[in-house]
């Protein structure tokens, strides 16, 4: 073709919807997609090889695709992208989208849909995924025409990431993927919605002065840092503010690794499984500064008795959160990093030496409930020592999650990744795959219980095929341990449906062609962790831990933070 036609040709170049989809993703900086093909998304998969900049990871179940995208998003701060077909492919995303929604992580899910003419006719593999995911996404859109496609993808990526992040789903009918159009932007981004001034309570400067006054007058202040600290990257600002005022820092489950745990001002995790001195500090506090959190019921226990002496200052990006779960004395609507930086400028430097001494006197030596020498504590301590603190730990949900949260000494920002709000078992293994792509240079450990591991262990095949060197560990106690613990404490030790059988994990590893170890005593731990970490590909380590170990202390559900169960023998409170 004569060269002078080339320019004209590219200006009027007609692309298929599928090509536009890929092109828009690529142009917006996406380079990684977790997905699974199927009928209604086939045009997209047909176009995909034309875009070598889009690395595709074929998972074994769509739930893993969304968890992996979530893990990638949490570790990288970028939007994680996953793709599934219509019907069952789309419905398999539901748990992962709800997980991302509860923990506010930016995820874009793209689903195929039956052709437009078939929508509403109960066609093969048709499901109303827009209706299904409306309550569990930040936003979702059905694309009606190819001319909307590029802008919809750009908007979706922006909406997922901006403000309080969250998952966005874009549903693309198969015939829209095949429609032809020019690749272009037809309009700019819709204006970002600003928070109306009437919800700011008072201008920022006045709010900061008010906060500074409350802090200056406080005798027993505490800071409670949540996920917002990690999402906004407010590590330095939090530290500066804490050091300037001497205020002790509590980190919630999702706030863990937002503040170095070796720091003398770090107290620990609050709430249901918080240490006694942390919860007592909350109950004695006269000012509580909550940063980037929603005062979840697992943090507060009975809200009527939560921090009864404290004036609460709530720093939070989303004005709908302020006063939602606990009454506050002062709400400051804003980004955690920005507000903490301003607050550090506004407060008068002070110390809290007396208060720190008082809190130290609350501290109790943690009651060891781990019989046998292979305790979760010893495993986690060894993992930290062997990796020299240089690994990211992705936990699943249950007892091991609490042990990791409480016992692993996190020093580096954002190295603790877990499903907090939704409490999704099966999260760790697929999420760790995503974390690996965000941090290819460092070991990523996915630690699960024997229950959660069996929920998504099919992803070992993905790791093998895609060469994803995730280090998997299983804390095997032969029980759904957290439920068993509740049965022990509150249901008269009736262990209904909690004993759980496992396959031979070493043989399972062998079947998948990966390295596997079983650790039965503490003296093997360091050596095995060292070998697994050094190994090139994915590995699996099974730790045979005490069957009936419990997580202490524990605030019974619905009780106040002042009523912990501190250790064995745990009371048997029948509460059916």
């Amino acid at each position, binding site marked *: 073709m004569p060269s002078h036609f080339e320019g004209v040709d590219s200006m009027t170049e007609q692309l298929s919807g599928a090509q536009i989809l890929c092109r828009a993703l690529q142009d917006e900086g996406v380079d990684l997609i977790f997905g699974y093909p199927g009928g209604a998304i086939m045009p997209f998969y047909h176009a995909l090889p034309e875009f070598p900049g889009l690395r595709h990871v074929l998972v074994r179940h769509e739930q893993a695709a969304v968890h992996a995208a979530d893990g990638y998003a949490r570790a990288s701060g970028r939007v994680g992208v996953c793709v599934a077909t219509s019907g069952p492919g789309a419905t398999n995303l539901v748990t992962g989208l709800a997980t991302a929604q509860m923990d506010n992580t930016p995820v874009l899910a793209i689903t195929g849909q039956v052709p437009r003419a078939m929508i509403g006719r109960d066609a093969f593999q048709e499901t109303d995924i*827009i*209706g299904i995911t*409306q309550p569990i996404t930040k936003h979702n859109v*059905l694309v009606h025409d190819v001319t909307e496609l590029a802008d919809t993808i750009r908007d979706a990526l922006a909406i997922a990431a901006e403000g309080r992040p969250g998952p966005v789903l874009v549903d693309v009918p198969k015939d829209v993927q095949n429609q032809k159009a020019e690749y272009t932007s037809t309009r*700019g981004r819709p204006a970002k*919605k600003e928070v*109306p001034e009437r919800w700011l309570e008072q201008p920022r400067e006045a709010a900061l002065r008010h906060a500074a006054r409350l802090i200056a007058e406080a005798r027993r202040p505490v800071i409670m840092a949540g996920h917002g600290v990690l999402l906004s990257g407010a590590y330095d600002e939090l530290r500066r503010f804490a050091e300037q005022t001497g205020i002790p820092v509590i980190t919630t489950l999702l706030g863990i690794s937002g503040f170095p745990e070796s720091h003398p001002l770090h107290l620990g995790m609050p709430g249901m499984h918080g240490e006694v001195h942390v919860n007592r500090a909350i109950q004695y506090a006269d000012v509580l500064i909550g940063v980037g959190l929603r005062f979840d019921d697992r943090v507060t226990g009975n809200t009527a008795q939560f921090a009864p002496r404290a004036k609460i200052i709530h720093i939070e990006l989303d004005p*709908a959160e302020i006063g939602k779960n606990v009454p506050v004395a002062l709400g400051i609507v804003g980004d955690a990093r920005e507000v903490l930086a301003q607050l550090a400028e506004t407060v008068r430097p002070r110390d809290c030496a007396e208060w720190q001494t008082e809190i130290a006197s609350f501290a109790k030596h943690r009651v060891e409930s781990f019989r046998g020498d292979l305790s979760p504590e010893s495993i986690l301590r060894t993992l930290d020592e062997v990796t020299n603190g240089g690994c990211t730990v992705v936990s699943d949900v249950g007892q091991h999650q609490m042990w990791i949260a409480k016992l692993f000494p996190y020093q580096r920002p954002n190295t603790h990744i877990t499903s907090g709000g939704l409490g999704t078992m099966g999260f760790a293994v697929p999420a760790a795959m995503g974390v690996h792509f965000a941090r290819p240079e460092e070991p990523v450990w996915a630690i699960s219980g024997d229950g959660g591991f069996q929920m998504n262990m099919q992803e070992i095949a993905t790791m093998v095929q895609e060469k994803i060197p995730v280090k998997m560990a299983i804390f095997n106690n032969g029980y759904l341990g957290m439920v068993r613990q509740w049965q022990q404490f509150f249901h008269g030790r009736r262990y209904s449906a909690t004993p759980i059988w496992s396959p031979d994990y070493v043989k399972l590893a062998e079947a998948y062609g990966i390295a596997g170890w079983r650790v039965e005593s503490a003296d093997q731990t360091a050596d095995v962790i060292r070998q697994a970490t050094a190994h090139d590909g994915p590995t699996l380590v099974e730790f045979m831990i005490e069957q009936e170990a419990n997580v202490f202390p524990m605030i019974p559900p619905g009780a106040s933070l002042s009523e912990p169960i501190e250790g064995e023998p745990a009371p048997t409170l029948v509460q059916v």
Partner: protein
Amino acid sequence: MTLSHTLSVLLDEELITLSRAVGMLRRRNLNIRSIAVGPSATPGVARLTIMLQSDEPTADRLARQLHKVVGVHEAVAFSARDGVTRELALIKVRADHSRYAELLDVALLYKATVVDESSEAVILEVSGSEAFVLSFLRALERFDVLEVARTGAVALDRAPVAGVPFSLTSETVS
């Protein structure tokens, strides 16, 4: 204190946006009395009016939640005394010629009008505050009421509307 509160919401005139907004109301588990939706002053923008029984912080928080929904331009909460509320009702009453005059007397008292009449039934139209409409319905209990259709309340805040509800629809940034 639990009171009647109005949520007045300006949103894109699309079923999907309405569905998102109403879905939000359902999920937050509140005591909703009525929902009315129709065009607003701006083309393409609908006004959704929700009457709910709640305390003021709850109503305000719901407005904040609604404000986050993509496609919602403005959401304000105000108490019954801070707004003007009206609803319209159509009431079908079985025609009883022996009591026709009595029926018209009651209608006159409530400024209701006869909008349709057949040998079997009369349709009356009334509008006013929710309490006024309810009072009329009670007054009609002594007749044979066949069917009732109520619009649900629409309302406007007495104060000038806060925020910038109208300009947002067309404004874009590149």
